[in-house]
């Protein structure tokens, strides 16, 4: 606390000890004044000093200060005086413990002085004496202490920082909020405890303080001793030096707003969430007042009513409601009804309102929900039920269809049952007919000429064909009803195809057709029902033979499609091919493309439907493609390593 702008000795007489008034003034003031020369001999001792120390000036004048008042030795005062002599500056100290032990005043808890030492110059740079001013500030100090207590135990955090931003004083509350000891805070920079996210705001606030401005309501996060974030709201003012305008420190009051901040954050979050929900939900949501003036609309509303937030807020909802909302009774009635419900705080519903715009037609449900304590705020929720109604219609149709399918299934089962019974009933008489014809042709009943015998044998052939048709009918029926499970076993498709080719080789030879197999020898065995797959191959090969002209080629290919996990078998011929319109139908029962040709070859149109049934029971697919050039390619697939249903 030293300054170099002390008054010079030669200026002093005019200012301090002027020729006429000075003596009277010096005597009358309530300030102790005394002067020592450069040997510390006391040259002046005013009456305040006499009263205060109960030492008269006759006793003290000419005496050495530190010898006369020996208690001053060891207090630092001799050193202070010596420095003033040496350096020539003014020395001040405030609220110092008493320099002299006063006899006249009795203060409990000590006596305090403001003390100033002024150097007295004989000439420049040569101090010849020191003027000491001594002010008893004990009373003021007590008041100060009390007010300091007020600070110390205030409910807000109060702190003082020096010009660098270091804490020089913090009260109890500050200690509490920061979770650090006083000694841990004092001396720290404010920036040491600020949460990084608040640094910018704090820096700006410091700049303003340094400009001499006050800072109010600074929101600032700090990290307490446990590393927890504490939100403070700080008011701060600059402190100026007592006799200069320089800003030397700052004082601040901080309030812990962590709880408030948390609530504010939550409210903000809830608000944001509500907004997001309002944006995201498909329902149109509008907030209206008791006059149906719109105060808030969401995006869905804007989309549905072809408007924007700007164009709708402040307008009346009635202007946006579809004509159908008002019904036939006229607009006033419906609006009155809505307003009346809102007035009494009752939810009002209106369903199935048709809404037509240039973009289409909707079915809407309206719900007016008066908000409790909402100052006449009513929430209007408008739901687009167009799809719901469509779905309802679809649902009803589906139920109807399902019932029909059920009925058809029943009919189908009856048919299957019928065919099953019919086939047994047909076979039994056929057995008898066969046996009798057999014996007839053997001449067991009468003498048979060769002509008779030939005729009987051809009748028998027809009977056999009839039996076959019955078999095939039953087979298809069975496959459709899935009465029997396919029996899966690891099977080489090459073996299956070879057996089938062997059985039909004579047929092909008769038409001078060549059958070529294109199946790798190492084709892996695959789970399938060998008998049934042989039936498929046989049926496809038989068709290829029957429907292709003489002297043509037939290829049977088989390979594993690892990408699709399929066994793929192809029967390729050089026949007429299958026209597109027949490509799907040929797999249905009793379907033949050319009846005359069918009669020629003796089929009944069941072969492919049987093949399809078998392949599908293996979870596979069968279809026909066009060959190159012309011809038909029948393809079926069997999934590898998958169970049949």
């Amino acid at each position, binding site marked *: 606390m030293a300054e170099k702008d002390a008054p010079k000795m030669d200026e002093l007489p005019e200012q301090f000890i002027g020729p006429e008034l000075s003596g009277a003034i010096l005597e009358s003031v309530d300030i102790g004044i005394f002067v020592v020369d450069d040997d510390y001999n006391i040259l002046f001792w005013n009456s305040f000093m006499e009263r205060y120390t109960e030492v008269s000036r006759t006793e003290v004048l000419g005496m050495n200060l530190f010898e006369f008042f020996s208690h001053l030795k060891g207090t630092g005062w001799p050193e202070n005086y010596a420095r003033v002599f040496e350096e020539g500056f003014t020395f001040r100290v405030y609220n110092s413990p008493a320099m002299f032990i006063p006899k006249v005043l009795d203060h409990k808890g000590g006596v305090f002085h403001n003390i100033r030492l002024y150097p007295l110059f004989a000439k420049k740079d040569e101090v010849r004496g020191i003027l000491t001013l001594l002010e008893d500030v004990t009373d003021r100090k007590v008041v100060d202490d009390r007010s300091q207590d007020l600070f110390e135990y205030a409910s807000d955090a109060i702190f003082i920082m020096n010009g660098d931003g270091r804490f020089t004083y913090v009260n109890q509350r500050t200690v509490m909020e920061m979770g650090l000891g006083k000694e841990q805070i004092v001396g720290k920079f404010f920036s040491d405890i600020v949460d990084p996210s608040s640094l910018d705001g704090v820096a700006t606030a410091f700049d303003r303080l340094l400009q001499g401005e006050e800072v109010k309501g600074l929101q600032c996060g700090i990290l307490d001793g446990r590393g927890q974030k504490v939100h403070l709201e700080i008011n701060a003012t600059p402190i100026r030096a007592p006799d200069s305008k320089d800003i030397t420190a700052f004082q601040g009051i901080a309030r812990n707003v962590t709880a408030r901040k948390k609530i504010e954050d939550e409210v903000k979050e809830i608000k944001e969430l509500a907004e997001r929900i309002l944006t995201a939900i498909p329902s149109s949501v509008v907030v209206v007042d008791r006059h149906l003036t719109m105060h808030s609309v969401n995006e869905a509303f804007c989309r549905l009513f072809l408007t924007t937030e700007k164009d709708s807020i402040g307008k009346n909802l009635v202007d946006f409601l579809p004509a159908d909302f008002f019904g036939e009774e006229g607009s006033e009635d419906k609006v009155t009804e809505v307003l009346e419900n809102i007035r009494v705080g009752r939810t009002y519903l209106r369903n199935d309102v048709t809404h037509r715009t240039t973009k289409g037609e909707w079915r809407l449900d309206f719900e007016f929900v008066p908000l409790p304590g909402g100052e006449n705020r009513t929430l209007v929720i408008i739901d687009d039920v167009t799809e719901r109604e469509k779905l309802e219609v679809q649902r009803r149709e589906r139920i109807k269809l399902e019932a029909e399918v059920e009925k058809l299934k029943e009919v189908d089962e009856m048919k299957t049952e019928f065919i099953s019974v019919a086939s047994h009933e047909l*076979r039994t008489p056929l*057995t008898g007919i066969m*046996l009798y014809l057999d*014996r007839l042709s053997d001449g067991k009943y009468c003498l048979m000429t060769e002509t008779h015998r030939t005729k009987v044998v051809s009748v028998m052939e027809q009977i*056999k064909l009839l039996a076959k048709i019955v078999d095939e009918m039953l087979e298809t029926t*069975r496959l459709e009803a899935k009465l029997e499970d396919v029996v899966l076993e690891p099977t080489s498709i090459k073996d299956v195809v070879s057996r089938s080719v062997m059985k039909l080789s004579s047929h092909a030879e008769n038409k001078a057709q060549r059958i070529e197999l294109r199946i790798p020898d190492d084709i892996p065995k695959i789970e399938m029902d060998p008998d049934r797959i042989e039936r498929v191959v046989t049926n496809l090969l038989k068709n290829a033979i029957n429907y292709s002209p003489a002297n043509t080629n037939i290829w049977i290919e088989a390979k594993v499609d690892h990408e699709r996990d399929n066994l793929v078998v192809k029967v390729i011929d050089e026949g007429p091919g299958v026209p597109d319109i027949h490509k799907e139908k040929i797999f249905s029962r009793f379907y033949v493309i050319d009846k005359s040709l069918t009669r020629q070859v003796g089929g009944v149109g069941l072969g492919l439907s049987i093949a399809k049934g078998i392949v599908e029971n293996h979870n596979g697919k069968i279809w026909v493609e066009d060959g190159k050039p012309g011809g038909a390619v029948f393809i079926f697939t069997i999934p590898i390593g998958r169970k049949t249903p």
Partner: protein
Amino acid sequence: MARILIVEDAPFIVESFKEIINDQGWQVSGVAKTGFEAIDSYRKNKPDIVIMDILLPGLDGLAAIKKIREIDPKAKILVVSALAKKGLDKECINAGAKAFIKKPFDTKTFVTTLKAIIEAE
């Protein structure tokens, strides 16, 4: 001379069977129209071979096969059926039948099969 029991509910088939059997110089030991009749007849006449239909009134052929095999574990039975149930042949063989022929069949098949069964031990 082989003695044969015919179990069959269709009379004209029974007649044709009888003719074929007689032609071969074998003898019809009896004719049964139901499963129960078949068991009774087998007990009474102890035929060398049984020609058995499956779909019969009352006790069906399959049950009759089992019963007859109980009475005589060595009983020789040929099944002739118009039933197209898959696996029926195996079922009959498992029950103790020697062979299975599906109706309709020709005389040759019928006779060959019968001969094979009769000659087998």
